[in-house]
């Protein structure tokens, strides 16, 4: 019992300070409060995998008991997480299904399914026909690509009258870039009816371009985002719907898993983690999948104030 209270659990996120991870920190803090453990969250100042490596090195050096990591670039973290596990640290990851050096990787959902879920809404809005384009934060981001690939696969299987136009458009996780890319797509493909974004800023940029042209009703825009970012465009209808998972819950779940690993408890298929969306997890090797996505539109956005 005494040792349970003295555990240090560091949650290392991709980048410090942004809403997404601030929300996650709420979950981490809630966990710390409820369990009395020293659970805290850190993140690098710049979105660079190497900075995250350095940060984890420092965490290992100061002797934490568990690491809950949201990798910027999973491959890049393999060696350092390997060292962490060798040092006897319990490692949990999130959004990194292919991660080798981890006890468990927690996925809010199967990425392809989430992308298909967005596509399903997009297709419904478009009436199952017309041109659409897709956006990713960066071509190097694995999850973004999985979402988009899942969406495209879903469209090809179910909506033969829809056509994808152009490449995956890269927005560098920047609303301004998403805006100019969207403008360009609108110019290059004047008949376009739908757009799907991946980075949380994508739909904001797309929504702005749509609103500027007064095409709110003529187009359908869906994507991953947060109400705090996309809210104003959901209100005007420039963006029709967003999907996400609640990072606070994910943060709490990671820390919970970390404690389970430290205590040697088994994680099993169909287990209930006692958190919304993770009531009946499915286990595939080391990867734990929940069904924790949330679809939000103008009607229910008030329920998610972050």
């Amino acid at each position: 019992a005494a040792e349970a209270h003295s555990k240090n659990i560091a949650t290392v996120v991709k980048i410090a300070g942004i809403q997404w991870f601030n929300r996650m920190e709420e979950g981490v803090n809630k966990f710390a409060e409820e369990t009395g453990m020293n659970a805290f969250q850190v993140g690098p100042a710049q979105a660079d995998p190497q900075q995250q490596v350095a940060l984890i090195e420092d965490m290992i050096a100061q002797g934490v008991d568990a690491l809950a990591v949201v990798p910027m670039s999973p491959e890049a973290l393999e060696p350092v997480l390997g060292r962490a596990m060798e040092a006897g640290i319990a490692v949990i990851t999130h959004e990194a299904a292919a991660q080798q050096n981890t006890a468990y990787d927690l996925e809010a959902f199967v990425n392809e399914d989430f992308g298909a879920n967005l596509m399903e809404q997009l297709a419904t809005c478009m009436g199952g026909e017309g041109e659409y384009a897709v956006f990713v934060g960066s071509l190097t981001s694995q999850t973004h690509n999985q979402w988009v690939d899942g969406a495209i696969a879903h469209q090809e299987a179910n909506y033969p009258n829809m056509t994808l136009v152009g490449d995956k458009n890269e927005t560098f996780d920047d609303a301004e870039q998403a805006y100019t890319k969207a403008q360009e797509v609108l110019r290059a493909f004047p008949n376009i009816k739908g757009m799907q974004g991946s980075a949380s800023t994508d739909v904001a940029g797309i929504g702005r371009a749509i609103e500027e042209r007064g095409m709110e009703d003529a187009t359908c825009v869906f994507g991953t985002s947060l109400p705090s970012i996309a809210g104003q465009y959901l209100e005007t209808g420039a963006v029709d719907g967003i999907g996400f998972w609640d990072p606070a819950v994910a943060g709490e779940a990671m820390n919970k898993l970390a404690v389970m690993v430290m205590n040697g408890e088994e994680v099993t298929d169909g287990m209930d983690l006692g958190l919304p969306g993770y009531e009946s997890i499915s286990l595939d090797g080391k990867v734990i999948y929940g069904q924790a996505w949330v679809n939000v539109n103008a009607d229910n956005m008030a329920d998610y104030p972050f």
Partner: protein
Amino acid sequence: MTDHASTKTITSAPEFRLLIIAVFVFGLMSVLSPDRFLSAQNLTSMAFQFPEFAILALAMTITMLTGGIDLSVVGVANLSAVVAAIILTQFADPAMPASQSVIWLSFAIAAALCIGALAGLVNGCLVAFFGLPPILATLGSGLVFTGFAIAMTGGSAVMGFPDTVAVIGNAQVLGIPVPLILFALLAIVLHLILTRTAFGLRVTMFGANPLAALYAAIDINRMLIKVYVIAGLFSSVAGLIIMSRANSAKADYGSSYLLLAVLIAVLGGVNPYGGYGRVIGVVLAVLSMQFLSSGLNMLQVSNFARELIWGALLILVMVINTHAVTALRGSFAKTPK
């Protein structure tokens, strides 16, 4: 007289002030967090962390000595790493016996170094033959190199190496991390090049007055090309370390290292307009940065504050240096008659 003069030059050199800063930061962190900062664990951890960007700072240093700059170092590092990684994943099976994979590893290393040299050659030609300002030449070429890395990989990471690759970035020899050994070697090599070879002297002299270098019949084009090739080679070594430490290669690794490398070089006393700079200064600047950075992480100071502190340190050092220079100016200008 000579004794007195030499002690005076040592203490008045900007590098001496950097030494004081490095020692001070180390002391401060040790006092603030004695059990953790001074732990062997932390010391090795730091030794693993800094070599990759420190080597990039060395590459920056030699180009700055000529009054240039190399903004393509990160692009070159990633491009060489990607090429090496592609060779390793195409030809070397992770399951391959170590003796065989070593051959492929050496081949991949050679290829990476070639890419580094080639990229340096491109930069050198742009600066020397086409007369582009280095800041723009390397900004543009850096985009091109990164772009090639993206195009070759489609933007995703290349991974799945034999275990031997891990040696470059993660192994220790006699308890000393291999990256640190590589950095130390390169720093010594660069120091010797700059102070003990004709080429090194020419580099500094050219930086001090390019026109006079032309009139002194120095082969400027060849010298500039060599400078950028060396910078490219150093960058590719950094790329290999990053690749090994990340067990993968990707076009956007280390993107925050560019400004860091410039900052370290300048903090290390290198004159970005050319003509002055010493490797020891750069090494001390790297150490100060790493002590500060790891120490602040232990104290759980926000990482944004770290950026603030770096910037403030840079300006502080400059203010001290400049003022010391004004005060000392007279001591050089001895009466000629």
